[in-house]
């Protein structure tokens, strides 16, 4: 606990931050615009565009000042430890977020569908419904709207998804290889490793885009395809969004490495992104097993 810098007793407290007020204003514009947009008000789109621009600009400025402080030598081991603990806690909260969607998947498969299929055959609304997974539900009228059961082909595990698994697992190796390079002060290895990781991330995203296109155009698998469609697209979609964020973060780290940032002793920025990337990797393994395979 009592690290060296703590004995000297000075912890870096940034003097002021106007980003967060602006960032919050951007978030307000973005989200209220989203609500208006979903409820068919024309102004919504423009509020969203304005909001997202402010949000991106503020994130950029915020991160820039953190990078400058880091390169300016303002952070000691003490601050570094705070960042590490903060990142771990943040990733834990992300795990909890995915837990909600995995929980929904398991609940629907193990509890909800068998129950829908187990009503007394004489009185059931859902005649002939077996509840076998993959399922788009028994169909019927709910809230006054008729839902015709979607006809779809489930996504097979051993095509594109298996390639995607390979891509992500390889990218986990390359980012670790880059880390070894950084620790040995081998900048070339660091930069090549990061570059390969970024490429693999982009390749994954392209494969997933192809998979989605295929699902929508040829397999009848859409967001509206009952429980299977909903859990499939929400789980893989949120994961894909996290891969996108991770890839953007990796690109930033790659550019910083090319500029000569990070030392063998001080590189939280690199490690935070690497941890995030491994987290995304692990979530994918869960997806591959429970969404695609089983």
């Amino acid at each position, binding site marked *: *606990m009592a690290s060296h810098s*703590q004995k000297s*007793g*000075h*912890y*870096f*407290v*940034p*003097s*002021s*931050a106007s*980003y*967060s*007020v602006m960032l*919050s204003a951007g*978030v*307000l514009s973005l*989200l*209220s615009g*989203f*609500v208006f947009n*979903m*409820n068919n*008000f024309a102004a919504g789109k423009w509020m969203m565009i304005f909001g997202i621009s402010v949000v991106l600009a503020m994130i950029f400025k915020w991160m820039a000042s953190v990078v400058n*402080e880091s390169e*300016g030598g303002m952070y000691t081991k*003490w601050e570094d*430890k*705070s*960042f590490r*603990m*903060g990142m771990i*806690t*943040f990733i*834990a*909260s992300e795990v*909890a*977020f995915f*837990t*909600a969607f995995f*929980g929904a998947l398991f*609940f*629907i498969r193990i509890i*909800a569908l068998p129950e*829908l299929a187990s009503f007394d055959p004489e009185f059931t609304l859902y005649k002939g419904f077996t509840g076998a997974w993959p399922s*788009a*539900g*028994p169909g019927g009228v*709910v*809230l006054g709207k008729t*839902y015709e059961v979607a006809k779809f082909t489930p996504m097979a595990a051993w095509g594109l998804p298996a390639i995607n698994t390979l891509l992500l697992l390889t990218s986990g190796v390359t980012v670790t290889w880059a880390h070894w390079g950084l620790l040995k002060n081998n900048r070339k290895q660091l930069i090549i490793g990061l570059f390969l990781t970024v490429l693999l991330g982009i390749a994954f995203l392209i494969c997933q885009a192809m998979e989605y296109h295929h699902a929508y155009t040829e397999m009848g698998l*859409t*967001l*509206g395809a*009952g*429980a*299977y*469609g*909903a859990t499939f*697209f929400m789980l893989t979609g949120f994961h894909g969004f996290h891969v996108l964020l991770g890839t953007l973060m990796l690109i930033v780290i790659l550019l910083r490495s090319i500029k000569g940032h990070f030392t063998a002793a001080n590189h939280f920025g690199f490690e935070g992104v690497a941890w995030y990337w491994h987290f995304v990797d692990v979530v994918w393994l869960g997806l591959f097993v429970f969404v695609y395979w089983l």
Partner: protein
Amino acid sequence: MSTKAAIHHDEHHDHPKGMKHWFTTTNHKDIGTMYLIFSLIMFFVGGIMILGVRAELFQPGLQLMKPEFYNQLIGSHALIMIFAALMPAATGFANWMIPLQIGAPDMALPRINNWGFWLLPVAATLLILPFILALFGVGDGGAATGWTLYAPLSVQGGMGVDFAIFAIHILGVSSVLGSINVIVTIFNMRAPGMTLMKMPLFAWGWLITAFLLVATIPVLAGAVTMLLTDRHFGTHFFDAAGGGDPILFQHLFWFFGHPEVYILLLPVWGFMPQILQTFSRKPIFGYKAQVFSLIAIGILSLVVWAHHFLTAGMPVPALLYFMYSTMSISLPLAVLFFCWIANIWKGALTFETPMLFAIGWIILFGIGGLTGLVLADVAADAQYHHSYFVVAHFHYTLFVGGIMGIMAGVYYWLPKMTGHMYNEKLGKLHFWLTAISFNLTFLPQFFVGLAGMPRRIPDYALQFAEFNAISSVGAFILGLSQLLFLYNIIACARGGKKATDKVWEGAEGLEWTLSSPPPYHSFSKQPTIK
């Protein structure tokens, strides 16, 4: 280089002045103050909403408002009180007091701290905006679903539900950011020698709260995201025709919702022993037992969620499991209660306002806890469920356990924060008015609930009229007496008798070693704890 200059400036900056600094501050005390002020404002906003409800319920029949508007009011009242009044108050105290209590120079992540606060006005705007828009004929007002947003009602609801969903997202982000900060601060910023088992109980309570928030808030975010896609993007998470299940929403919601109860209470359980210690002039009784009980309650709170919908239909083994696990929470909670009582036992007691609130809190919160045991009973719950008995129960736990606890904390720490003593006479008057009118409001609700009056209905059968009239009168007295609280705080902030550094004769802990008010940068040199 400008960065260098900015960094140089930081090393020497003193207490900044002016309005602008409130928007940009990274100081834990400034941010704590903003949290507390925000909480106080939203406490009155949520209070006014529920006074509208009580006015409607004063007599049977529909007097003042349409049922839809009534539903919007109760839903927004709960969301505002829980997310915008109670949680920010606890976070405000965490910001103010945890660094002082553990001897830290500031919170560990000051910018994150600042953003965590500034997300709250965004969320409050999202909650209140639909009401204002409805005045101009846009949309149909707030979410008319109650704070639980149960599907399928919330899938059918109007634009207000969308606003509520995003408000919950933002409140969630804010709480997770705050929690990350508390966890990192406690693990990384303690003064040398301040081991975990020497740490003040308030920090312990908050540490467990922070872990619960990190574990459960994202699940709620996931649940309302599914709600959003069910509403607008054609998914079938909560729709049996597509293979989904409305009960799934209840599981996800209460997986968050039950720990949320303890998220609101654990910080209060943390500082309450410190208040009892101060005014009993006796050391904290059973420190270790209390720490382990807090941890046990935190863990148990994650595995009991389904007792909130025992009547929704579940297999018998599941019912039994949720009944027994829920009841087992009363074991560590009883340990806490006996520790609090033992702390007062044979103490040299004085009854300043914080102590009055603390003792009233133990008694009334005890009623809340015991009525919870009744509700956990599967067989009995069939009668109590969704009745006013539940409303009375959770106001005994959340109004007393949460709000009155926070009030005890406000009176306890206000002299330390402002450097002035508050008006003791007004404080005592505020306590007695609050305690009496609270019971006048909620005690009758146990009776009407037992007799079968359902929650969330703007009209009721004639036989409930007297009790409801009493309840409404109590609610208005309760609401009005909070103006004393407001006045006392403002008067105290503006001036009054100077507070000493220690403020209270029996006060123990690092925060009382600093001046009142503490210097802008509290521990630039960390103290060493023996």
